[in-house]
């Protein structure tokens, strides 16, 4: 069953249909919020709020865009509003980075390669956090594979070409900073 069919059922009050939509897209919503908030707790709150708000405003969805795009745009706006709030600023001031670094993917490499991969991952995470928000969000949304550049343009309210340039710029900055930290490029 497609998203549009589930939306029609959910509009008629079918909570199980909306539950299926939540199951399909909650990870993308969470990651979209995480690109802005950079805190898992805040992103979790924003994702919940976005999904509940989508349920409440389901009647206003006019199917001009895909449901996922509409949903991610709600999450994006809520995350930006949350990040601009006083409490969020105070929290970032008190605990700048409370989340642990992500676990490296298990690729079956040797122990030495795993250690090297963990170090690279931690360094990349740190450099991503140092990026300005206008570069970080397009880079993470593009690398997550949750949406295309056209969908990102609808979510972030920017042109597709601008977003592609920002992703490229973000990659160049990260590579330059990693090189400054001692990583050698092959």
């Amino acid at each position, binding site marked *: 069953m497609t998203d549009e069919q589930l939306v029609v059922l959910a509009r008629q009050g079918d909570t199980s249909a909306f539950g299926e939509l939540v199951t399909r897209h*909650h990870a993308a919503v969470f990651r979209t919020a995480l690109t802005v908030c950079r805190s898992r707790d805040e992103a979790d709150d924003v994702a919940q709020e976005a*999904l509940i708000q989508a349920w409440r405003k389901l009647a206003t969805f006019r199917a001009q865009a895909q449901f996922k795009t509409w949903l991610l745009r709600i999450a994006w706006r809520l995350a930006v509003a949350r990040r601009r709030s006083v409490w969020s600023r105070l929290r970032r001031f008190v605990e700048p980075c409370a989340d642990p670094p*992500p676990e490296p993917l298990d690729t079956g490499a040797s122990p030495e390669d795993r250690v*090297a991969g963990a170090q690279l991952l931690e360094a990349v995470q740190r450099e991503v956090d140092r990026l300005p928000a206008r570069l970080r969000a397009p880079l993470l949304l593009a*690398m*997550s*594979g949750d949406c295309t550049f056209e969908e990102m343009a609808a979510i972030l309210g920017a042109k597709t070409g601008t977003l592609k340039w920002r992703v490229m710029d973000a990659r160049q900055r990260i590579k330059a900073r990693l090189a400054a930290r*001692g*990583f050698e490029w092959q």
Partner: protein
Amino acid sequence: MAMTPEHMRIDDRQLDDALRTVATAPAPDDLPAQVLSAIAAETRGWWVNWRPALVAAVVGLVALTAIAVWRLAPSRPGHIVVSRMDPAPHPTSVPDGPARPRTSAMGEALGSGLTAPGTEAADLRTVAPRRAHGSRLMAQGGPPVTQGSVPMAQGDGDGVPPLEPPAPLTIAQLQTPELSERQLQLTALDVPALEIETLER
């Protein structure tokens, strides 16, 4: 030996893998369950959370209505029921038929001539006994008291002197065509017309 970044050689593929790992952070497992629980709570309806308050409001409304009805009830002691209906023939003018015993205060009021007994029980209202009216009657010596008359509503008038029933009308008085019903009432009560209007109002 721990590897330092100085010894690490990386390429674009490794950087992409690292960026993809950072970007695809796993969502909390309980996120869908929490969202669906919140939505289910909303779907149940707002009145579920407000049910105790609604019940309390309904009970309070019923209680207030009961109090209001009790206070405005026409059978409250110390009140006199006045009817605006056209007066029926005085009980004394009824030639045949057994005299019915009057047991209630309302029956006393009807028999005393203060109220005109209507043929229907409609358009009733209550008039609280007025201290000024009673005191004025006392100053005027009160209405004529006849033998055998019983003071009305003795003991439950909150200090208001009881009204004395007037002398019963005779059949001859009732059959006189010149006497209107109004004159009959005035004669029966032997009080000024202003007092009658005050009572009726």
